[in-house]
């Protein structure tokens, strides 16, 4: 076999078929997906993110949270996601319609976060956890994010947004307060309630 033109044509065609099938087709297919209306409240599903949560999504991307945390709930026959309480139902395509960058993830060094806003809506927990994960979760190997926080000198009154650190973590004369990025990230995490509502193609189980 010595005709390069034929070989060239061959490998272009084989590639083109999968290019159409796996890249172009899904892009076009999902472009037709729309939000739906919640029959009870009339709200749009999936709901839009507020501006602070949108900024938080950028912080999530910039710091690579996706490399340890997934955001997809698999059906019961494909894994233990639902049994672990990570969602009441599997996530479907429509649940990611609002994502500028879909961070479904491929590693679970840490738990799945699809519905972390349902499991854990506490601002103070999230802030403390981000500052030093081992303060809320002993045994965790998650990276601490001290650079999302600032140390400020203690004033006449303790600040309302200062973290309440345990005694051995406190820095004498200083308080630790969250930066805007930290607050945004927490807003984003709290917005993650991906399979907390019913969709026509994925109703919540009735119980």
């Amino acid at each position, binding site marked *: 076999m010595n005709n390069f033109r*034929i070989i060239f044509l061959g490998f272009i065609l084989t590639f083109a078929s999968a290019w159409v099938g796996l890249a172009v087709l899904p892009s076009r297919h999902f472009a037709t997906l729309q939000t739906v209306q919640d029959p009870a409240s009339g709200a749009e599903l999936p709901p839009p993110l507020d501006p602070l949560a949108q900024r938080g999504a950028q912080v999530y991307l910039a710091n690579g949270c996706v490399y340890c945390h997934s955001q997809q709930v698999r059906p019961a026959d494909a894994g233990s996601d639902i049994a672990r309480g990570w969602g009441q139902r599997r996530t479907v395509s429509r649940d990611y319609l609002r994502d500028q960058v879909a961070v479904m993830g491929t590693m679970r060094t840490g738990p799945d976060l699809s519905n972390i806003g349902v499991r854990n809506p506490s601002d103070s927990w999230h802030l403390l956890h981000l500052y030093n994960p081992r303060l809320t979760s002993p045994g965790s190997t998650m990276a601490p994010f001290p650079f999302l926080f600032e140390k400020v000198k203690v004033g006449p009154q303790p600040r309302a947004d200062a973290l309440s650190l345990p005694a051995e973590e406190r820095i004498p004369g200083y308080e630790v307060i969250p930066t805007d990025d930290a607050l945004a990230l927490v807003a984003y995490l709290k917005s993650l309630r991906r399979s907390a509502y019913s969709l026509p193609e994925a109703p919540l189980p009735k119980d």
Partner: protein
Amino acid sequence: MKSFTTPPPNGNHFVLMLALIFLVLLGILASALLMFWWAASVGQFENIEEGALAVFDTDEPAGQTTDSFPDPRR
């Protein structure tokens, strides 16, 4: 796992587009098969095994090895 259980959004337009894309895929597959048939008919598949000798040349012929470790005394 089930795929969508409700009618696809945008109804007929979606089905038309899907059909079009599958036709394209079929067309690509057909051309690939045609190409193989053509190649066979012009003798591209004759004397196949000669191709294996293309790595050798006149001063590095088949039967001669061409690699070694550098002098171990260094």
